């Protein structure tokens, strides 16, 4: 009797937390979990540690200096410019991608002919690497000796009689409006050379946003819209009060995906402008690479890396928390 009881109790507990299936599952994820623990979280920890040392030069030195490197980089005009550029790029890139993506999705959803063809056309740039995009758009936006002897897009404008549209594009050195604020070593405003870079990035990524919105639009039940129309709502009202709110989760996902691409952007800018003119299109990723591997200031490079990590985390972590909450609600 007693024996039977223990026998029945024991396996029951085993089922709850560890049976054969679970053991195999754990075994299967263990290698990747271990690899991620070491190569992602381990190295984040290492970078954080390095960023608080005085490691300069090729020989590692690990005297602890606290937040000195962070103070140094935040006090350089160059890093302040990088942060300004990052904000400008992210805001313009996100806004343009969302608006153009939504517009394209709505157009394609309106049952145009050859829908499949257009869908492929818009989404195709995403298949390219940012390196390719950067090189190609660098050629397009190289102004040449305009207005008389232009190249790229300026030449196109000149030959099609739209010469007045010629501009300096990636070589435009102005910052609009370029306010100077006491204590800041950079000018506040939109560096005009950043606009062509945003155009190239939007060209590449807006098709992706379109695809996301298209999936969202297809997921909205026709009955709800029909019911609204029966109640006398105009098409605009249907769009504004039914379609848009129901697309909100899609927008959020798109912002997160595009946002983390934008905050870590490196390859596109390296190939398209290299950060020029001056530092007008340079972002922290480029700065990190240059001071780490060219100037051998490893500790300052690590500090820039940590700042980038924190900025991306500020975007992603609230999203994860929000996601978890909505999942619990469901």
């Amino acid at each position, binding site marked *: 009797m007693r024996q039977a009881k223990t026998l029945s109790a024991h396996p029951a507990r085993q089922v709850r937390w560890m049976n054969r299936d679970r053991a195999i599952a754990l075994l299967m994820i263990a290698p990747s979990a271990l690899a991620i623990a070491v190569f992602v979280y381990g190295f984040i920890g290492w970078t954080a540690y390095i960023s608080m040392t005085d490691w300069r030069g090729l020989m590692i030195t690990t005297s602890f200096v606290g937040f000195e490197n962070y103070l140094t980089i935040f006090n350089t005009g160059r890093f302040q410019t990088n942060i300004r550029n990052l904000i400008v790029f992210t805001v313009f890139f996100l806004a343009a991608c969302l608006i153009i993506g939504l517009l394209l999705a709505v157009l394609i959803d309106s049952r145009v002919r050859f829908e499949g063809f257009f869908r492929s056309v818009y989404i195709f740039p995403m298949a390219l690497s940012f390196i390719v995009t950067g090189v190609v758009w660098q050629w397009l936006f190289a102004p040449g*000796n305009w207005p008389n002897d232009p190249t790229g897009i300026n030449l196109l404008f000149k030959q099609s009689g739209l010469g007045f549209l010629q501009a300096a594009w990636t070589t435009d050195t102005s910052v609009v409006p370029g306010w100077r604020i006491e204590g800041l070593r950079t000018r506040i405003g939109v560096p005009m050379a950043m606009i062509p870079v945003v155009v190239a990035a939007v060209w590449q990524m807006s098709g992706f946003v379109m695809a996301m919105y298209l999936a969202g639009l297809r997921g909205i039940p026709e009955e709800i819209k029909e019911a609204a129309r029966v109640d006398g709502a105009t098409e605009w009202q249907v769009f504004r009060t039914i379609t848009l709110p129901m697309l909100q989760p899609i927008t959020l996902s798109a912002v997160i995906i595009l946002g983390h691409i934008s905050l870590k952007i490196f390859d596109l800018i390296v190939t398209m402008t290299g950060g*020029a*003119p001056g530092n007008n299109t340079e972002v922290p990723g480029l700065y990190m690479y240059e001071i780490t591997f060219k100037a051998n200031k490893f500790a300052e490079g690590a500090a820039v890396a940590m700042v980038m990590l924190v900025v991306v985390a500020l975007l992603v972590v609230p999203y994860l928390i929000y996601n978890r909450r909505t999942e619990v609600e469901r």
Partner: protein
Amino acid sequence: MRTTKWLKLISAFAIITLALAACGAPSTAQPTAAPTQPTTAPAQTGGGKLEIFSWWTNGGEADGLNAMFSIYQQKYPGVEIVNATVAGGAGTNAKTVLKTRLQGGQPPDSWQVHAGKELTAYVDAGQMEPLTQFFKEQGFDKVMPPKLLEQITYNGEIWSVPVNIHRSNVLWYNIKIFQENGLTPPKTIDDFFTVAEALKAKGIIPLAVGGKDKFETPHLFESVLLAVFGPEDYARLFQPGADWSDPRVRQAAEIAKRMLEYSNSDRSSLSWADAAQLVLDGKAGMTIMGDWAHGYFISKGAKVGVDYGYAAAPGNDGVFMWLSDSFGLAKGAPNPEQAKAWLALCGSREGQDAFNPKKGSIPARIDADVSLYDEYLKYSIKAFGSEKLVPSVVHGAAAPEAYMTEYGNALNVFASDLDVDAVVQALRDAAKDLK
């Protein structure tokens, strides 16, 4: 049933392992130059391997390197040469790979490095062997100019063997344009502005300047600094504790500003080669660039003395601003004997005369066989032997990498905003990285 499942799993695992092993082959070390040769002839260094790390992957550079490799193979047939190259202009990518390898404790036997202060980071990290004694044994100290040896000495020792010399302060001009307009290449800064004004009046861009490779304006500025400061004071500017509050820094910045105002406005979208092409196409009159521009012009089928001419940069007459590619010896090199044999070849007349005509540079020795070189290089060899030598800062000869980065960024920002006050301040701030 069960056994087939396991078999599938195991075979899948085996395939993945094989695939990974194939990918895992050392990607940086590609033996491209020379296949292993049978160890029949007894060589001085026996057999073994020699790993040479460089960023010479294409054109004349790779040809020159291979010419030296084949001499090495003739001398030491038993040695397998591993030619580890990483492509990328000015070696930025290569340096990244190299630094990673050094920190991982896996140095190549010998690696390419700009002679002069650029290599101080490796020396400070204890990654290079001093070569002063080796220079004496090989007699290099007698055939290389004393001024050059002085300028590549750090902490009292010489650390690398210069294979070649490039000249940085050269003015290249379009001969046809100059003849049509009755102009002569400007000797002084004042001459430069007279010529520039004349060209501008004809609707020709006076000075072509690039910017895409991020060294072009810093490059232009070093020749202006030399013109304003003169050779002695210029060299002093990059010594530890140099005085950058000197009013002549501002004077140089003002001159550079005026020069840039006479240049093309799309600087930041052009590479140095694009700028040289403007001169060749007759769209621009002049450009100030190192003598790799000569190699570029030749590769485009242009003829020196017919299509383009050369002169010292304005105000730089009688001064030769040098930069040099060199090879050093790794501390803890896996094959030190083979590496020393390599360095001996790098510094020898035979090696340098094999390498340089192909690379389009001149030997670091003063006893070169002049007949092997073309018209411009003959002029350059003569100048190297007779003129005052100063080191280039942009190309690693005069200052450590940390300073080069700060100096370069200060000038690149200047190229964009032409703010004299800001660049003077930025250069003063950068001086803290001099050591």
